């Protein structure tokens, strides 16, 4: 649990892990959360569990956007395209050609990463604004192509009858079962990214984010690194999309438009793009809040946008950043002070 919180502040990790009592407290919290997580499907209603499944899927896709934003300062609104590619690859290949799930996901990842590389390489040389708008343009292109190429995607009619994921005879065809499948996957990916941050590449990324000129002088090929992160982000989108297809068993083009891309960006910003736990918080927010506000109708889209604006202005570090600060302030003062 502490490991999720202490994304880029190893000092914090040290401080938290130093001292037996503190260590034990961390373990206790972690265990409590784990048990709480495991118990949810047993006590909550089906619709809540369904929401939480979506939260996990959005966490995965949102992690890509969040990482790109937090580590490279790149605003990407293109994640919906890769999400769609993953979903349609799975949908098409399972229903038309009967391919196994993993193979379809691999294809989805392959196509997404190839496109991300091909488009990313020239685009990522651009500066902030240009780049963001280029990704938005990409999202529009993707959405139109998903709609127009109905021989592949079924267009507005979509593709149905996607088989559920299964291991042997055991099918993951209920929200509860899928919940226990998808969250570990999400957490695994989160841990992988935490690894990344704390090893060589992560240092290079953080260097690039703080002072790109100095990073270049240390031998870091900034452009290549950005492309790598973009490709990684696309892979995450594709993974989330593939899982989505297996879960909802029917997909249509409405799920892969601009609003989806905005949702991913929103959850990245809200959750705090510089923390590893950010995407989880953001994803939980954007799935639970509309549910809570469902009495108000379509207004939640407006409220979301309002939240995005408020976060940008008042809470630039997002929920994750605030949580982080909260945890820091709760620790006894064995801390090096900053100016």
């Amino acid at each position, binding site marked *: 649990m502490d490991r999720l919180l202490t994304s*880029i502040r*190893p*000092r914090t990790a040290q401080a938290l892990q130093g001292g037996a009592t503190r260590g034990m407290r961390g373990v206790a919290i972690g265990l409590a959360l784990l048990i709480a997580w495991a118990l949810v499907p047993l006590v909550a209603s089906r619709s809540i569990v369904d929401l939480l499944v979506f939260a996990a899927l959005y966490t995965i896709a949102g992690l890509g956007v969040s990482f790109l934003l937090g580590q490279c300062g790149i605003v990407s609104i293109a994640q919906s395209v890769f999400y769609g590619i993953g979903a349609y690859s799975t949908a098409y290949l399972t229903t038309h050609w009967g391919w196994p799930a993993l193979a379809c996901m691999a294809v989805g990842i392959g196509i997404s990463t190839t496109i991300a590389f091909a488009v990313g390489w020239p685009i990522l040389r651009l500066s902030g604004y240009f780049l963001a708008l280029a990704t938005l343009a990409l999202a529009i292109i993707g959405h139109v192509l998903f709609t127009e190429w109905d021989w592949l995607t079924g267009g507005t009619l979509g593709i149905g009858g996607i088989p559920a994921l299964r291991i042997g005879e055991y099918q993951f065809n209920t929200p509860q079962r899928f919940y226990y499948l998808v969250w570990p996957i999400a957490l695994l990916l989160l841990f*992988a*990214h935490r*690894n*990344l941050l*704390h*090893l*060589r*590449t*992560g*240092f*290079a990324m*953080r*260097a690039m*984010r*703080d*002072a790109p*000129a*100095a*990073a*270049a*002088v*240390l*031998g*870091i*090929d*900034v452009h290549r690194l950005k492309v*790598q992160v973009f490709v*990684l982000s696309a892979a995450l989108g594709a993974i989330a999309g593939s899982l989505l297809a297996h879960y909802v068993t029917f997909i249509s083009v409405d799920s892969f438009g601009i609003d989806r891309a905005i949702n991913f960006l929103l959850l990245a910003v809200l959750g705090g793009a510089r923390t590893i736990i950010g995407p989880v918080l953001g994803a939980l927010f954007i799935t639970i809040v509309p549910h809570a506000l469902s009495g108000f109708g379509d207004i939640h889209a407006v409220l979301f946008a309002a939240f995005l604006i408020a976060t940008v202005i008042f809470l630039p570090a997002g929920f994750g950043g605030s949580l982080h600060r909260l945890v820091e302030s709760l620790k006894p003062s064995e801390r*090096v002070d*900053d*100016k």
Partner: protein
Amino acid sequence: MSALLEVSGVSHGFRGLQVLKAVNLTVKTGSITGLIGPNGAGKSTLFNIVSGFLTPDAGEVRYAGRSINGMPVEQRSALGLVRTFQTPQVFAHLTVHENLIAGGYKASRTGMLANLVGTPASRRELAALKREADRACERFGLSEVRHRLAGGLPAGQQRLLELARACFGKPRLLCLDEPSSGLNTEEVNQLMALLERLNAEGISLLLVSHDMNLVAIASVIHVLCFGEIICSGVLRELQSDPRVREAYLGV
């Protein structure tokens, strides 16, 4: 001594203004070379050209016997050509220790996929980098502040950090852009001693500075004025050279 860096016939202009006019300059291997000149002489431009941040309109830059025209900054760095910046470009949100680890990028290998998985090789590599960073902290006197965020350090220590980080990858030619700016006299003296020590360890230095005291450590100094090298030599000679006087006083 052979030439580590050779600048030949480099010219460059901005919007009709000719900033550099066929500049020739050499840095001998193992030396400390200074570059001075009044404001607007073109020192920054020349510096940016040498370090790869600018492509000259004409001329050639040769490093370690090969032409590096058009070579990107990171490749020059891989060959040992490293620079610092006038305002220290430390990684503000990283600690001193982490800044140094970042400096070890060139010296390490593992890629993104390996890092995602967290392979044993990746972890060993990081552990090695951490040990190196500890050593660098001691060498440069940063051990006390190793866990402070670099952004919160005073200018003098940021300068030190930037130097330490640049030296992490064992550079061959270290180009320093106004390294004494923002430092008090005491700190400048410490810097001079440090630079001489680094030079003694085999690092060649190219020093751009306003500070006459600092450049005194250089074995040869070039004077740049209005885009041309007007003379070169030892500091004492230059100080009594009428052309130099005119360049500085006449501006």
